[in-house]
């Protein structure tokens, strides 16, 4: 069973101002997940940590209210903020997918979800998720219609979903 993490108030937070408490709660719940994403996207630990600090530092109270509203997935919202912040930088990072005709190793390693995907699925999933590419850009890059790119992306998520369900079954 998957649980949605929400910021919780700890003893040390009680002495902080309200905004700091909320931000610290968010940081406690999501910083490791966000750093993992930043690390995979940037492939540079120092830069990823720097971006993490910037993202949380620039979170304003209104942003926090918006991303912690009921019915909103806080992590996904934080990830979107991170993605926007990285958009300029991501274009310069190498693609994750292993080049089809060379023996060059993949840039992202240790990601079991990506390992389970085909080359095409890796290209699409990593392209949008880690490199901030649009469906339109991938469509032009792979010379395939946008609907096909969306289908491949959906397949990638099916693999992730199956893996998630398998994990949930094991833990049950």
């Amino acid at each position, binding site marked *: 069973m998957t649980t949605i993490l929400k910021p919780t108030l700890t003893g040390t937070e009680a002495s902080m101002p309200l905004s700091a408490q909320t931000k610290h709660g968010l940081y406690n719940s999501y910083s490791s997940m966000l750093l993992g994403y930043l690390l995979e996207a940037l492939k540079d630990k120092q830069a990823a940590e720097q971006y993490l*600090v910037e993202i949380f530092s620039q979170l304003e109270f209104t942003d926090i209210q918006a991303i912690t509203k009921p019915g909103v997935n806080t992590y996904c919202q934080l990830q979107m903020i991170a993605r926007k912040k990285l958009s300029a930088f991501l274009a310069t990072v190498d693609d994750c997918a292993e080049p089809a005709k060379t023996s060059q190793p993949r840039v992202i390693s240790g990601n079991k*979800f990506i390992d389970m995907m085909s080359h095409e699925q890796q290209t699409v999933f990593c392209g949008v998720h880690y490199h901030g590419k649009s469906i339109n850009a991938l469509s032009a890059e792979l010379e395939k219609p946008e609907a096909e*790119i*969306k289908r491949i992306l959906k397949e990638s998520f099916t693999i*992730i979903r199956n893996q998630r369900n398998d994990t949930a079954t094991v833990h049950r």
Partner: protein
Amino acid sequence: MIQQQYIDSGILEAYVTGSATEAEVEELMYMKAKYPEVNFALQQLELDMEHIAQTMAVTPPAKSWDKISETIDELILRPEYDPKQFEPGAEKTNYQNFRTEGGPQFIEVESESSHMRIHKTWKWVFAAVFVLGKIFLGCAIYFYLANRQAQQQVEELKTELRQLKK
């Protein structure tokens, strides 16, 4: 069903990965609000994203929070007011309506204020004092000059008398 076709189209996946266009996002928000199936599918995809992130999570160094906490400024959450209390009919008793939901309500009174309130009639008193002040000032200047002129004349007369005595 239209909602199932929409779910199968891959737009939801594009949205959670941030690659959907603005028009697609708008359409998705509409579909999400209208069809619970779309909302559920989106929630599941968001959980998938969380699952990936949890699997690949990396604990940040302790100093990261210290850097963030240095930049935090105290922000005060403004209480939410009920819009009805600002309706035209509520003007006369607005102080009674100006309250938030829940909890005891008090009218805040400043115990230590550097300002004081006085009756409006004091405005005319202050105006009269100001005008009288100006008149007295004018008189003082006039008499001062007149006095100085008179003294000069006395001095001149004394000088003439001394010259005549010689």
